[in-house]
């Protein structure tokens, strides 16, 4: 059957289950947990969230092992969709990456634009790696992709000018949290998504040094796995989930999420902001049918 | 019947058994004696299927036991072995003895009766709950015997089963073995280094030496008529004199010894043959030097060189050119007033000198 739900196979009396793969940084904000409760109630379903690195999450999707995918790496999403694994992408929210660094700001990049700041950090880092350092996620995550984009935007060739260019540039190869901790330990700069940074703010001494600039835009989207390529995925519930996310009430929940905890919102709702994000309106508001 | 046919065995470079042959009858008690390292344990282990012969075969009741792999278990279960180094399972004495029975699915109640009886017989009643690992050497040896016996084996293999036991405990065990052999017709193959034990228990003895059974025979045959000087020496015949048969007169051979003296002895061997003459110390009569000559064919004069206790007897070494050991009772030693240095005459009958051909080596 088209929707041969594996949960149903195991236990037919159980409610339907949606398997959702997401990146750690999104999951760790707690947004998805906040969103899934009303959905589960409304649709008499269960949402099981698997959080992993962007690559792993997409990997699960490529194999048709999950029903829905939520990541924030447009380039790889495009490839994913192009390869026929994903369909019906909808953008649900956005926010901005921040460049964080030591309070003392040894490179003096505060309030520069992102590209300038990166250029300066590199320059000062090359000159005095003991004072100025940059920690990179180095793991090909969405955040890392963004970092590379900024280096490119600043006119550097990432592989030749940045990596292996000196002790100032530290390629960590770990999650966002660990990278923040490392940057903190080393009094270094790094690029972080705002959600993770806010979650870590109290535990580390890093402060945002650059938080504005178009290039820092971070777009979160959802898509379902293509049932034609992967028969057996829970397609109808996946549609329900996407549609649920773009409804105005859900968008409102997204807008308000985190205010209580952090004193500021973690996400901006996608609804009405397709321009800011540079995507089609249908990708924001068009219901999946 | 256990037929051992041309069995050989080497460990690495070292050949332990060359060509071992013997047929052990049902109901027989067969003792293997031989020097340390001669392969007694190896042979028993091969009968028990723990070791595979390199050559030859062992046939038990018509079955070549190392060839018929399908019947291995059945054959093993009709035998039981008491090892030279008895192994204790890390369990109670009770559980140690019960192992074989449990393998045969004997009901626990029956096991219990058997074990209580067995402990009684070996003199270890009340030891049921003791950790077997803490037993004394002799206690463990007896437990190992009980472990083998309770399985009622048709063939009992015992590798020096009383090595760690005092004479009183040994006697108990020997009585037990004799009894079950008589009552149940159990075949017993025992290796022992205790010559007296061989004599006491065995119907026949095999002397394992240099990779072969140098001699197989009744205890009397082996101890009184050893086949060669090596067997003779091993079974405790201390006086072995080399020589050559010079001539025969009236059916009695005159043997010129390498030490100049001449010994008369009864032997079918012909003149010219090189021989060893074995004279058991207890076959020699000892007199004070002044005693009138006796009828015994052989008589030598000498001096008492050493006197030592030898259990119920006294052992004298008399220097007659060659040292000759003589066993006499304490009583006679006392009566004769012997002491080291006393001049004496020794004599023995021509029939008391056992002559064996010297075959090299």
């Amino acid at each position, binding site marked *: 059957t088209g929707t041969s739900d594996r949960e149903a196979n195991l236990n037919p009396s159980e409610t339907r289950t949606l398997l959702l793969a997401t990146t750690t940084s999104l999951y760790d904000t707690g947004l998805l947990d906040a969103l899934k409760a009303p959905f589960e109630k409304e649709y008499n379903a269960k949402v*099981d969230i698997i959080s992993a690195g962007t690559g792993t999450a997409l990997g699960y999707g490529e194999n048709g092992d999950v029903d829905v995918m939520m990541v924030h790496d447009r380039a790889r999403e495009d490839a994913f969709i192009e390869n026929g694994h994903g369909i019906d992408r909808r953008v649900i929210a956005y926010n901005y990456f921040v460049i964080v660094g030591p309070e003392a700001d040894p490179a003096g990049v505060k309030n520069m634009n992102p590209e300038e700041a990166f250029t300066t950090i590199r320059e000062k880092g090359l000159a005095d790696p003991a004072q100025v350092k940059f920690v990179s996620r180095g793991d090909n995550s969405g955040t890392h992709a963004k970092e590379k984009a900024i280096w490119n935007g600043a006119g550097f060739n990432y592989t030749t000018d940045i990596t292996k260019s000196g002790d100032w540039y530290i390629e960590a190869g770990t*999650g966002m949290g660990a990278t923040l901790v490392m940057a903190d330990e080393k009094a270094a700069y790094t690029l972080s998504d705002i959600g993770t940074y806010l979650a870590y703010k109290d535990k580390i001494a890093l402060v945002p040094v650059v938080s504005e600039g178009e290039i820092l835009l971070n777009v979160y989207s959802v898509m379902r796995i293509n049932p034609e390529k992967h028969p057996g995925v829970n397609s109808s519930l996946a549609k329900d989930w996407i549609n649920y996310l773009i409804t105005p009430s859900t968008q409102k929940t997204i807008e308000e999420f985190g205010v209580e905890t952090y004193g500021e919102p973690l996400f901006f709702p996608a609804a009405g902001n397709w321009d800011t994000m540079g995507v089609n309106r249908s990708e924001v508001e068009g219901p999946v049918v | 019947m256990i037929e051992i046919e041309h069995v050989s065995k080497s460990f690495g470079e070292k050949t332990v058994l060359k060509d071992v042959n013997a047929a052990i009858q049902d109901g027989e008690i067969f003792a293997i004696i031989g020097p340390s390292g001669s392969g007694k344990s190896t042979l028993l282990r091969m009968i028990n299927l723990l070791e595979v012969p390199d050559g030859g075969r062992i046939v038990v009741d018509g079955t070549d036991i190392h060839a018929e792999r399908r019947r291995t278990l059945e054959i*093993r279960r009709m035998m039981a072995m008491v090892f030279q180094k008895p192994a204790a399972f890390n369990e109670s004495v009770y559980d140690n003895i019960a*192992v074989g029975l449990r393998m045969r699915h004997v009901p626990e109640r029956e096991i219990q009766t058997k074990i209580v009886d067995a402990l009684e017989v070996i003199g270890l009643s009340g030891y049921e709950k003791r950790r077997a690992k803490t037993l004394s050497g002799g206690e463990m040896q007896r437990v190992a015997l009980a472990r083998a016996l309770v399985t009622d084996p048709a063939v009992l293999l015992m590798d020096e089963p009383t090595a760690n036991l005092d004479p009183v405990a040994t006697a108990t065990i020997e009585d037990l073995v004799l009894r079950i052999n008589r009552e149940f017709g159990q075949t017993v193959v025992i290796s022992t280094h205790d010559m007296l034990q061989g004599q006491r228990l065995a119907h026949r003895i095999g002397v394992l030496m240099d990779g072969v059974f140098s001699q197989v025979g009744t205890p009397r045959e082996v101890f009184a008529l050893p086949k060669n000087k090596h067997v003779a020496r091993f079974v405790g015949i201390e006086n072995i004199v080399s020589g050559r048969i010079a001539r025969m007169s009236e059916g009695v051979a005159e043997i010129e010894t390498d030490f100049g003296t001449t010994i008369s002895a009864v032997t079918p061997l012909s003149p010219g043959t090189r021989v060893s003459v074995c004279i058991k110390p207890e076959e020699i009569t000892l007199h004070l030097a002044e005693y009138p000559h006796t009828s015994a064919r052989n008589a030598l004069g000498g001096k008492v060189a050493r006197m030592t206790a030898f259990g119920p007897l006294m052992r004298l070494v008399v220097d007659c050119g060659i040292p000759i050991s003589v066993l006499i009772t304490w009583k006679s030693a006392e009566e004769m007033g012997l002491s080291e240095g006393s001049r004496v005459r020794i004599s023995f009958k021509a029939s008391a000198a056992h002559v064996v051909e010297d075959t090299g080596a």
Partner: protein
Amino acid sequence: MGYIIDGLMEAFHLIVSLDPDVMEITVLSLIVSLTATVVATTLALPFGTAIKFTEFPGKKVLINLIQTLYSLPTVLVGLLVFLLITRHGPLGFAGLLFTPQAMILAQTILILPIMVGLTISALSGVDETIRDTIISLGATRLQFLTSIVREARFAIFAAVVVGFGRAISEVGAAILIGGNIAHRTRVLTTAISLNTSQWEIGTSIALGIVLLAIALVVNTGVTLFQQR
């Protein structure tokens, strides 16, 4: 040090309050790892005995390979099992991915080499005379196995404890195969990872202490059992 004290306090609190979430993942941890240990033990005893007491060409090489698999990284096991049970994998039809059953499978594979290897090692510690005695007493193959294992029981229990320890403390396979899904496949180690990635160090330490506490209970159980 503050974190450690926090962790201890929180662990204490979590344990005495029987926090339902913690209870749930603890129970799942126990079920998964204990089952994997039992399955691996059941396989390791006959395998180990067979390898130890059979002579065959390549035996040394085999033992060497088994020992090499002690170094199997948990992530690699996770990946291999993933490839096996992913929807398009050979066992995809069974829908095992993201289930505790799959985690049991992965942990079993993970600890099997060490359990076989330590079983062999344990059996090597049994004196040859004991082996001969068992055979001589007329043991069937199965009786030989049980007797020799019984005699080596202390070392074998040590192997079981090692296997269990490795199973319950591993995270790579559990997270890849189980997906760390709340209320479904989240176990103590994946929860610790999650909390660590969120830098909830106190909670991580608390969960670690809970993990050690249940390991203590299991080991005490095993110790008491073996001393029977």
